[in-house]
């Protein structure tokens, strides 16, 4: 029988938000979809704890987070960039993990070697009031999450836990989350005809660097200055996630999860879905170039990604050999059995 349980936020870095798969079907009314910056990592964390792939989870930023369970144990998964995690102060192995957090125990995530976002999923349902059918937080318009704002110390997230047994500490086998940026694939358009061929080539070759101005709404990228062939004002039209708009100053902006629904600058190309998370995870200073692909190639990459998740998440319990018995005793985990 499930008990009342909650996840309490002890500390949260700026910009930590609740995100589900996004607020869809209202773009026509100017409502931003929001949703995770790295959908593949978000889905991985959710699937690992037995949730649906687009369930509500915490999107953790470079500022990190510290949480504890209140009332009952909670099963958590973390997946995304290479963040450093500790349980009651003890370092856990790097990479995607699953564990059961006992009441009073503290789980902490901090920025690690690489990556800009990671996802903390909780088995069961995080109970916050949906707005237009979604819990995705869009802080610029105060939609979703808790009062449309970022999470902060003292917030308590009530959780409806599923009837599942506590899980042993395990590593989530998710090699697909190891995605160095290097090359970001794009489909040209919808306004590539606003640029001459040499400008398309300059756009492709870059090289580009993620600037310090990179957030949930947009990634400003540094590189060659592009010139427009026929001006830079277009009649506002729809903006897809990953659209690369080139404003009057010729410096491209990649529009991300919190982008506005429509806009009035030419969009030279669009980052393909499977490479959006890869770009999102690139920190300021990371350099890359674009590769132009066809819609068919983009769909093939998308299908490959869907197939990976469809095969299911494999969890490898940590065994005694990987840790000292003292460490495992300290975690109350011997041979994968959680003592109560």
């Amino acid at each position, binding site marked *: 029988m499930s008990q009342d349980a909650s996840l309490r936020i002890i500390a949260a870095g700026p910009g930590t938000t609740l995100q589900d798969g996004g607020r869809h079907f209202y773009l026509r*009314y*100017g409502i931003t979809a929001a949703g995770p910056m790295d959908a593949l990592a978000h889905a991985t964390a959710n699937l690992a704890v037995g949730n649906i792939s687009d369930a509500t989870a915490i999107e953790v930023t470079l500022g990190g987070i510290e949480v504890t369970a209140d009332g009952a144990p909670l099963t958590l998964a973390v997946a995304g960039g290479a963040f450093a995690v500790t349980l009651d102060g003890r370092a856990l192995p790097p990479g995607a993990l699953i564990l059961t957090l006992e009441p009073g125990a503290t789980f902490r995530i901090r920025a690690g070697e690489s990556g800009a976002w990671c996802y903390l999923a909780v088995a069961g349902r995080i109970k916050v009031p949906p707005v237009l059918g979604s819990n995705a937080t869009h802080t610029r318009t105060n939609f979703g999450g808790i009062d449309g704002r970022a999470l902060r110390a003292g917030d308590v997230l009530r959780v409806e836990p599923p009837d599942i047994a506590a899980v042993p500490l395990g590593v989530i086998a998710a090699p697909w989350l190891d995605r160095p940026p290097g090359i970001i694939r794009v489909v040209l358009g919808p306004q590539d005809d606003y640029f001459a061929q040499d400008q398309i080539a300059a756009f492709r070759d870059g090289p580009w660097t993620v600037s310090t101005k990179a957030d949930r709404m947009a990634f400003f990228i540094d590189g060659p200055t592009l010139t427009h062939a026929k001006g830079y004002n277009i*009649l*506002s039209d729809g903006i897809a996630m990953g*659209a690369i708009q080139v404003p009057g100053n010729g410096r491209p902006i990649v529009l991300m999860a919190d982008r506005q*629904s429509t806009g009035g600058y030419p969009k030279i190309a669009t980052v393909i879905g499977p490479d959006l998370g890869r770009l999102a995870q690139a920190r300021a200073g990371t350099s890359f170039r674009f590769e132009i692909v066809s819609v068919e190639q*983009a769909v093939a990459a998308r299908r490959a990604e869907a197939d990976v998740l469809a095969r299911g998440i494999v969890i490898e319990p940590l065994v005694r050999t990987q840790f000292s018995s003292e460490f495992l005793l300290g975690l109350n985990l011997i041979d994968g059995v959680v003592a109560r």
Partner: protein
Amino acid sequence: MSLPTTPRFLDAGETALVVEFGDVVDPVINAQVLALDTALRADPPKGVRECVPTYRSLMIHYDPLQIDRARLVDAARSAVADTIVSATVGTTWRFPCCYELPFAEDLDEVAGLLKLSRDEVVRLHTGTPLRVYMYGFSPGQLYLGGVPERLAISRRAEPRPPQPAGGVSIAGGLSVVVPFVMPTGWYVIGCTPERLYAPERDNPFFIQPGDQLRFEPVDVATYHALAERAGRGEVVARKSAA
């Protein structure tokens, strides 16, 4: 009435297709966009997730693992061919707007730049119904066209400080109504007590693209009275008889 023209099909990545009917603000082009939107909503091909109508194009968000691009283009093309486009408008709304201080923050500036009196600016803005072309940019934000040429004013080079919620602005021969407080490069000439996004109403967004707004000047006291009623959930804009 107008025969549908052949639209352009442009990719916005592998999950969005732009069906573009033209490149100007024109009620007939917009009517073509809205007709395709209506057709795809009435009978959505499997894999179509949502559509976003704008001035001159429809963005179709789709799942390419459920419908491939070629089939989507075919479906859109046949929907365009089967659609009778008429430039008739939807509902005309008498839409209250206060053109007085403290709401009409930029009215004096606009009047000065256009060499008109304040009253003339208001008369021009209220004198003719403005077509709702699209929502965009922020929740419930309306983009209107049909603004008289004498009110054509360029956007500001630098955005002005945040305008109040409900701000009614003009720039570039267009007008917008902006429900959220935000910085803008447009000139704020008034403010409406109406709420364009009201989550507690059965229909949080009651204006549809293709509708028309005929702005009606209200004084500050009336503005506050209407805002209070709107705050309780009432729609304070009125359908026009004609």
